[in-house]
């Protein structure tokens, strides 16, 4: 026991420091003061706790509870610092968690797993796509696998909830990926109690987004027509399936790291992945630990789900037709996450075998390979992730809107969800204004990928869509719809909004934002989800989280997951 404890205590700092070093290298210029805004990654100064934050306004709660977590963190830290803390935590946790699964007392093999898990195409592409909430769950996935393996043991439920906490913060996508993994690992042990605990933990931690999602007036949306838009795609010479196997294959061609996918580095990376998978397979064959096979099963299931939209789109479209909730499988590549765990642990096992054979160079090479083969992830993914400040016009608009006590919502124009503002170096980002303002903002949440558009989901956006697209005068109609302000945050490309807003008063005209006010706006309320139900969901989840930490003297010297898996598998 003492040996195991000593191993753990001396075992975690170096992976943690390595993860921190990798995170610092990845973020690079993004560590400067300001916000890193890329696709879905939106952090704002002084975010508020609004009904929208909790998904009460009838919108689809994709941002629940991750936005609430970001807002909570920003109450104790400046918003931009909070963002950097979250992003660095992803790398630290990923490196520590993957390293903890490698059955070796040697540090280098464990570092090989940690570096591989924190620095690979999956992390790069999802980071560029701005999916920090998904990456939170990804980072803790090895811990989830270990906790699920022991779910039926004494205290196993508590450990499982703790391990799932980052995924729970991340929301539905992160929890779905973690859920598949945890269920596969628990099922492999063939103990009903373990599976039941996994199901219960997943259900309780899902409540903050599940309740508003199920109770919203429009139900669970699912556009089957968008399957091909979000299906995995080839970003290496090895086709879509080969790209997924290499942990790449994100649907968005704009978020592939610079220079990734060339034949030479992809070929070497393929060899590394195959060696890692072979080593993992040998390890499974030579030990009697069902959870390892469960993790392999999770990787296989995840890979199949990841490939589904690309190789059998009609099947997924049919499933979404049966129940729209299956749309969660549309963005396939994110389900390659369990495979990343297997690859990372397998690389660690291979490195350990090399160390046993006194092939030090091979062991060191295993540590360095992920970084050397994907150098463009460094320094803000080759300068793509940079810290920027919000324009002064935005702060002025916020002061105006927040000082106004009259009711009414803000309408956001141009009528599109994403922007490529010059102040963000032209980088595409989900418009931050709905988070920047504490007043309800109606924005077009329809998303367009190439020629495919996924329909808007916000009921009020759906209602206003025909009017705004019509080209007709807006002011009177918006007044009836309860719109108090119209914010045009891309004036240079917004066209002739002024003509359509005749009668509205310009209260701010800046280079980066023009704000109109419509006096006499009607008091139109959202079709809200019952607040009591949402509050109840948060209370139940909160109780479960507090319970999971009770009775466990959590210190840095105590294994987060209880028993160290290394001792179980050796």
């Amino acid at each position, binding site marked *: 026991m003492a040996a195991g404890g000593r191993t753990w205590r001396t075992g975690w700092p170096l992976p943690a420091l*390595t993860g921190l070093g990798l995170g610092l290298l990845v973020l690079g210029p993004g560590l400067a003061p300001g916000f890193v805004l890329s696709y879905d990654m939106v952090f704002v100064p002084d975010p508020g706790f609004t009904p929208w934050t909790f998904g009460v306004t009838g919108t689809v709660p994709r941002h629940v509870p991750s936005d609430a977590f970001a807002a909570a963190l920003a109450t104790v830290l400046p918003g931009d610092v909070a963002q950097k803390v979250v992003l660095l935590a992803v790398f630290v946790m990923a490196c520590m968690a993957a390293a903890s699964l490698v059955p070796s007392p040697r540090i280098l093999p464990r570092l090989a797993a940690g570096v591989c898990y924190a620095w690979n195409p999956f992390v790069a592409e999802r980071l560029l796509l701005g999916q920090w909430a998904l990456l939170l769950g990804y980072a803790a996935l090895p811990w989830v696998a270990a906790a699920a393996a022991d779910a039926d043991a004494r205290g196993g439920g508590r450990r499982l909830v703790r391990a799932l906490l980052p995924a729970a913060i991340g929301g539905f996508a992160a929890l779905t990926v973690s859920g598949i993994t945890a269920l596969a690992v628990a099922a492999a042990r063939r103990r009903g109690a373990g599976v039941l605990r996994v199901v219960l933990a997943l259900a309780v931690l899902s409540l903050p987004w599940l309740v508003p999602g199920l109770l919203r007036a429009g139900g669970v949306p699912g556009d089957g027509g968008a399957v091909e838009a979000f299906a995995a795609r080839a970003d290496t010479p090895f086709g879509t399936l080969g790209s997924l196997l290499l942990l790449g294959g994100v649907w968005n*061609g*704009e978020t592939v790291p610079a*220079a990734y996918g060339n034949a030479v580095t992809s070929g070497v990376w393929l060899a590394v992945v195959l060696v890692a998978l072979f080593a993992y397979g040998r390890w499974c064959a030579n030990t009697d630990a069902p959870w390892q096979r469960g993790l392999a099963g999770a990787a296989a299931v995840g890979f199949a789900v990841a490939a589904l939209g690309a190789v059998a789109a009609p099947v997924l479209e049919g499933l979404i037709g049966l129940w729209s909730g299956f749309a969660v499988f549309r963005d396939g590549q994110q389900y390659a996450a369990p495979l990343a765990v297997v690859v990372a642990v397998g690389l660690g096992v291979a490195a350990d075998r090399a160390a046993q054979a006194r092939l030090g160079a091979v062991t060191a090479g295993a540590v360095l390979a992920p*970084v050397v083969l994907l*150098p463009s992830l460094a320094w803000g993914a080759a300068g793509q992730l940079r810290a920027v400040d919000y324009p002064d016009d935005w702060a002025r608009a916020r002061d105006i809107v927040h000082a106004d006590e009259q009711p009414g919502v803000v309408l956001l124009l141009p009528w599109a969800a*994403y922007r490529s503002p010059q102040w963000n170096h032209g980088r*595409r980002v989900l418009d931050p204004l709905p988070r920047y303002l504490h007043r309800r903002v109606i924005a077009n949440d329809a998303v*367009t990928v190439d020629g495919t558009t996924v329909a808007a989901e916000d009921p009020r956006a759906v209602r206003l869509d025909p009017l705004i697209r019509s080209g007709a005068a807006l002011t009177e109609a918006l007044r009836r719809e309860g719109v108090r302000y119209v914010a045009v945050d891309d004036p240079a490309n917004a066209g002739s909004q002024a003509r359509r807003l005749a009668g509205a008063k310009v209260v701010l005209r800046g280079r980066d934002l023009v704000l109109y006010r419509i006096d006499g706006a009607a008091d139109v309320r959202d079709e809200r989800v019952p607040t009591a139900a949402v509050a109840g969901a948060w209370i139940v989840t909160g109780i479960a989280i507090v319970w999971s930490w009770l009775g466990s003297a959590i210190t840095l010297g105590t294994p987060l997951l209880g028993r160290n898996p290394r001792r179980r598998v050796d």
Partner: protein
Amino acid sequence: MRIAISALVGVLLAAVASFGAVQLASASQKDPVIKPLYNYGSR
């Protein structure tokens, strides 16, 4: 421990070298202006 520190230094050196190469490659590039303006992305 020395081996571990060496590995850590190796990772850092590799990353710094990679960073230098990438910086050289991207130094001449201008800010990306992605069109069409309001798409989520393109495949």
